């Protein structure tokens, strides 16, 4: 590619991109794509991530003061804000501080140090699972997740912060991406952990339609959104659908049927079975009712199409189980 030649010519003129959540699978895929044409800075709250040569890596909590030092030491042109603490990783208060206050801090620093592009990795979960959801929710649909579970309040508030900055500070060029369920090797979100297990709880009589996307395709989507820079809010999802219970079987898992009515029953089971995030209560409604998003706007705006089919995605989980016995 000609980019490497161009790089040698104007090495100093490469843009610098800061990536949060660098220890996660999505960030790793994104960094692999950025590395070369851009300078990359890796940030994670969990650990100092081992990176390729030439990628500075920091272990820092973004809501703490130390985060600003990175901006003092480097001229940051763009931020990929991917890092989040998931409900299975920490308690609500700590998550709120890191996810919400951290995002606030990140956006403040972006303004102070004149960063001119910010990509926010959100989630389709913000729409909230409800029996009254129409299918193909567009970007203007209300975000009802905080009414569904307190464990997603932070996700909704991150969105609202990003939204305020999106219209108030257009110079930040904020793009908010709301992907459907991300799966693939190394993905450690709740659903991916669940489908990696041999036995997976399902609610009797409920199998909502879901959408899945390979982490590789999401990394491509983020790169397109970054390089074409068209600020706004976008759902990111393929035009393909499958009910939850069928996805469970397609991943080679055995379904563990959980009584679903009255609604108190699954909650009791969830608190009994939630050892090691086996059956997370905050996803109960998502195992019952659909959140089907319309990814058309993103697909058309950025001319993006996922390369992996549903079967490709599930094949990884099937094979993983065959290997482990």
């Amino acid at each position, binding site marked *: 590619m000609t980019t490497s030649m161009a790089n040698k010519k104007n090495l100093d003129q490469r843009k610098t991109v800061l990536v949060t959540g660098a220890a996660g699978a999505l960030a790793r895929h994104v960094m692999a794509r950025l590395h070369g044409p851009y300078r990359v800075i890796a940030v994670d709250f969990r650990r100092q991530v081992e990176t390729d040569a030439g990628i500075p890596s920091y272990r820092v909590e973004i809501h703490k003061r130390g985060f600003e030092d990175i901006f003092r030491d480097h001229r940051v042109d763009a931020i990929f804000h991917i890092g989040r603490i998931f409900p299975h990783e920490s308690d609500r208060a700590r998550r709120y501080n890191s996810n919400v206050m951290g995002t606030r801090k990140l956006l403040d620093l972006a303004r102070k140090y004149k960063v001119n592009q910010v990509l926010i990795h959100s989630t389709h979960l913000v729409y909230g699972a409800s029996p009254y959801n129409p*299918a193909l929710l567009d970007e203007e649909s209300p975000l009802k997740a905080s009414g569904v579970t307190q464990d997603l309040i932070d996700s909704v508030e991150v969105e609202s912060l990003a939204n305020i900055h999106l219209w108030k500070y257009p110079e930040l060029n904020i793009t908010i991406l709301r992907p459907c369920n991300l799966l693939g090797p190394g993905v450690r979100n709740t659903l991916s952990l669940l489908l990696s297990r041999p036995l997976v709880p399902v609610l009797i009589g*409920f199998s909502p339609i879901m959408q899945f996307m390979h982490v590789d395709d999401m990394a491509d989507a983020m790169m397109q959104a970054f390089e074409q820079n068209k600020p706004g809010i976008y759902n990111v999802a393929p035009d393909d659908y499958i009910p939850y219970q069928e996805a469970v079987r397609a991943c080679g898992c055995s*379904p563990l049927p959980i009584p679903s009515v009255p609604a108190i029953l699954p909650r009791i089971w969830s608190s009994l079975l939630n050892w090691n995030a086996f059956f997370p209560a905050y996803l109960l409604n998502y195992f019952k009712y659909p959140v089907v998003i319309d990814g058309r706007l993103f697909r058309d705006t950025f001319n993006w199409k996922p390369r992996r089919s549903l079967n490709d995605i599930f094949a990884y989980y099937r094979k993983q189980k065959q290997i482990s016995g």
Partner: protein
Amino acid sequence: MRLAGTLERSSMSIRRNLARRLVTEEVEQMVARVPKHVGSFGYDAWGYDESRVKLGAGLSKHLYERYFRVRAHGLENIPAQGRVLIIGNHSGQLPMDGILVGYALLSNPHAPRAARVMFERFLPTVPYLGNLLNNLGGVIGDPLNCARMLQAEEAIIVFPEGVRGSGKPYSKRYQLQRFGNGFVHLAMAHATPIIPVGIVGCEETMPSLGNIKPLAKLLGIPYAPLVPSLIPLPARVSLHFGKPIRISAEACTEQGVTERVDQVRNAISDLIDEGLTQRESKYF
């Protein structure tokens, strides 16, 4: 875990047996002819499931041809493709009319269509039933769902009377109840032709003496009819599809919309009258 596995295996074998008996070659071909886009696992965004539709079609075929001995008139009025709203009168406590109109569309020799039906909002909260209805093409009656489906060039069956029509007692048979205005708003916004359908015979499938309100409230359902049998009676049913009605897309007041609704309502009323005059026998 072993128990769950055994249960699943036995329910799978029951399903396979049922599938073999219901999904005949004819039904397979019927569904295969339908112009309908589905994803890699055979589903669409609303949960339409090709394999379940085949099962449903196999079962409905028996209901349609043998049990209710349906006669359909004017099937040639249904467009072969493109968005369309099928608007009919609702009756008979259970949504048998929806099933029969749906099967008439699917088995239409002129141009088969996969019918979508809008249903009550409480249904998705009922285990199995909500998913099953989704699989067969139903969705909750949310205007957004309807709009999206019209954009996707689907054929949608709507009963604008809703529970006012289906839950009414036998003494009010073939008297059209108040129509909601929603379908005309959708037809106007999405330039959609309307096919009126008069349904005769479904009133006789479950004649109700009245609504047991306390029971309905207890069960959390819209009505609990006082009926001789909870199984629909084998009344003869006839469907009368009318010519397409094109609603003007020009903006107007709600009063104006109501007038356009009445235009459709009158067409359905005429089709019902036609069916009632032609009817020779209610049950035999």
